[in-house]
């Protein structure tokens, strides 16, 4: 029996997940394709246009994308037993998708940077003029969620982005570019996903990660089952596996915050309870995504 998985996890992590699943379910085989979320969805769209749908399970970066697919009726609902152990904010209440880990977006800075930013609003100070890099929501799903989270938040709203722009912040392509820019000192400060900075720092890179005082935005790397899956049974098993305790243990080993309650945190991260999350609503974010992107591209073009 073969299950087809489309995932945006880094290749090594994906391989780990798949190996563990295959081990837990002898006789099954997982064919997986790894790519950026954008490309995966593009591939999926092209397949759909050609009348063929390959994947059974999606495990991709953000919930907004899945919300869109759900709206189009492309996903299958499944009420997993494991969901009991999860914060209801982390999965779709109809069971269309489940968050598997917590990837927050905070502030990274070069180890030698003059300033030590502590809050989002620090980035608007004159000392940071022309020094801040961030991933562009036009390319990165996580960045879009970050944008939606902030703009929907009355404490920030669009004014925050306008000020950022005024302060000369630049939008790079994705989180990878921001990491490189910060670590190499091209831009000493950056808006970045937590695990990237923390993992690099562990390897010795001159980079620090800060969870800003106002809170962080969050992507959950959700898993979902395609409606046209030819292996629905196996697909459900996969979802259960990812959400199960051993599955979450893997997440931990890979260096991410697991989504499941009661798990430990990986080295370099603060306690789960100390991370303050900014509120987020996937459905609303989807509704606003056009306006958000438009607003952003107007601002930064």
């Amino acid at each position, binding site marked *: 029996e073969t299950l087809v998985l489309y995932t945006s*996890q*880094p*290749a*090594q*992590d994906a391989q780990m997940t798949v190996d563990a699943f295959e081990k837990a379910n002898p006789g099954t085989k997982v*064919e*997986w*394709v*790894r*790519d950026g979320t*954008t*490309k995966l*969805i*593009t*591939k999926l*769209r*092209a*397949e759909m*246009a*050609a009348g*063929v749908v390959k994947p059974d399970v999606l495990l991709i970066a953000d919930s*907004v*994308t899945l919300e*869109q*697919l759900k709206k189009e009726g492309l996903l299958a609902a499944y009420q997993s037993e494991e969901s009991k152990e999860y914060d209801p904010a982390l999965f779709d209440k109809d069971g269309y998708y489940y968050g598997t880990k917590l990837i927050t977006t905070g502030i990274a800075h*070069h180890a*030698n940077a*003059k300033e030590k930013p502590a809050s989002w609003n620090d980035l608007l100070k004159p000392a940071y003029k*022309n*020094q801040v890099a961030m991933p*562009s929501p*036009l*390319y*990165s799903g996580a960045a*879009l969620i970050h944008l939606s989270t902030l703009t929907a938040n009355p404490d920030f709203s669009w004014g925050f982005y306008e000020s950022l722009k005024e302060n000369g912040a*630049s*939008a*790079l*392509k994705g*989180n*990878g*570019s921001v990491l*490189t820019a*910060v*670590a*190499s*000192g*091209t*831009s*000493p*400060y950056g808006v970045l996903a937590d695990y*990237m900075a923390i993992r*690099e720092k562990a*390897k*010795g*890179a001159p*980079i620090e990660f800060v969870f800003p005082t106002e809170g962080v935005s969050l992507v959950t790397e959700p898993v979902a089952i395609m409606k046209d899956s030819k292996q629905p049974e196996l697909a459900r098993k996969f979802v259960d596996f990812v959400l199960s305790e051993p599955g979450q243990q893997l997440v931990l080993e890979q260096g991410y915050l697991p989504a499941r309650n009661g798990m430990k945190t990986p080295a370099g991260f603060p306690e789960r309870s100390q991370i303050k999350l900014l509120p987020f609503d996937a459905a609303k974010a989807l509704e606003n995504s056009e306006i958000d*992107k438009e607003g952003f591209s107007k601002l*930064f*073009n």
Partner: protein
Amino acid sequence: MGLLFIVFLVNVLPSLRLLGEALADIVAGEKSSFWKVLRSSATWQATWHSLYTSVLATLLALVLGAGLAFFIALTNIRGKSFWVFMFMLPMMIPPQVTALSWLQLMGPGSALLQLLGIAPGLGSPQPLYSAWGIVLLMGIQHAPLVFLSVRTNLLVLPKELVEAARLSGASQLRIMLDMIFPLCKNGILAGAAIAFVSALGNFGIPAMLGIPASYYVLPTLIYQKMADFGPLMLNEVSSLSVIVGAIAMSGVWVQHRFQSRMALVGMPGKPLAFDLGKARIGCEMALGLIITLILVLPILALGASSLVPAIGVSLGYDNISFSAYAHMLARQGATWRAFENSMLLSLSAAFILACLVLPLAYVTVRRPRRLYAFVLMLLDVPYALPGVVLAIACILLFAKPLPVLQISLYGSLGIILFAYLSRFLTVSFKPVHASMLQLDGALEEAAQLCGASMVRRWRDIVFPLLAPAAFAGFLLVFLIAVNELTVSALLWSAGNETLGVLVFNLEDGGETVLASAISVLIIMMIALLMLALGIVGRNLPKGVIPWRN
């Protein structure tokens, strides 16, 4: 006719499929995605940016590529083979790497600038994040395309033509302007057309340098559209691609417009040797500097970032680490498989194309028809499209098993090969076509009278005379394809990963160090391969292997 059919299949079909997708909802009138795209001001701004950067980058590539070709082929500079070899290599280095190494070179972390004491402070504005940066890097990246094309052309110039001009009293400069340029017009145009089309479709460099400066070109805009997960995404992406295709076609139209058949009667002379006199050593140093900038520095940067424990750490004696290489050897399975796949794909694509392109060039030159002229313009479209878009077209075409044969290309290496054939057809076609335009027809006629059938004539006369150009095309395709990323990114599947995909996936996952290590290995392997070819190629006709004189 069969030939045209193959070309149609490989080349035109994907473009048509995209056009179909773009116009799929045209019945929706005002609301259709095609109109929507056309009405959007972002589209036109990106179009303008695309044109601007591509044209300028083409000019730069022309100056660099043609300049070096002239320099190396026409002067009495020493070590010609070496220079040719060195100048072929930059094509191997993925644009992102070049971009990155330049960014690092000119950024605050630059070891070189720090050494000189002129390193900019942390976070100071990066001059490369601009249209000019894009132009600069694309120009350098595509210069070898022009270089090979022009060089091939230069080698067949009858020396009397230049000598006659010298006797007329033309200075070396005038000879360049009045003789060499016009006589190499076809090669220059062909090179320029490839460079232009490459620049038009280039995603890596504008993404790296343009996005931070909020400078969007069509490929980055297309990518942006793809991040728009809605159901209309494909139509909009296709519509934008239609614009790219249209620009590419008009570029190629310009090329065909100014290209002319110009049979060079007379024996090709020994490469002309302008005497540089005392300037020679200076010129050699300048060449060395250029090579350093476009080749050595990026490779050093790559090497450096493959040896550090983590990105951003500056390399020193104490922290040098071979862990990336060790890691790679440990999981050699995937690396080796990717290497095999890429080799297989690029070599077979290059080979099949060489076989396809020779008769195509022949037919279009010897029996010109209007239809051919049109087909020739279409040839460039798949190369001009951003790779992702071409990949979409291929998925659209092949996601279902082939109608009659019931074989599914999708999910196999086959579909990647198909996409490569489609994409690189023009790359291998251009040099051959340019050479064909200058082949004296009497040579073939003489064979015809000896009773040589079409096939024999081909084998004995046309093929050997076009071989250098065909090999140049082969090499170009091979070099570009072996690292190819954007097309294979959407088309690969487990077990079918290519080198480009491997590197990209590592990079995307933040594993820059590993990615650099693999890149270094790739470059080393290819360089070794090319050297080996040079040795094996001792028996090939003169001029076939560019770096053997």
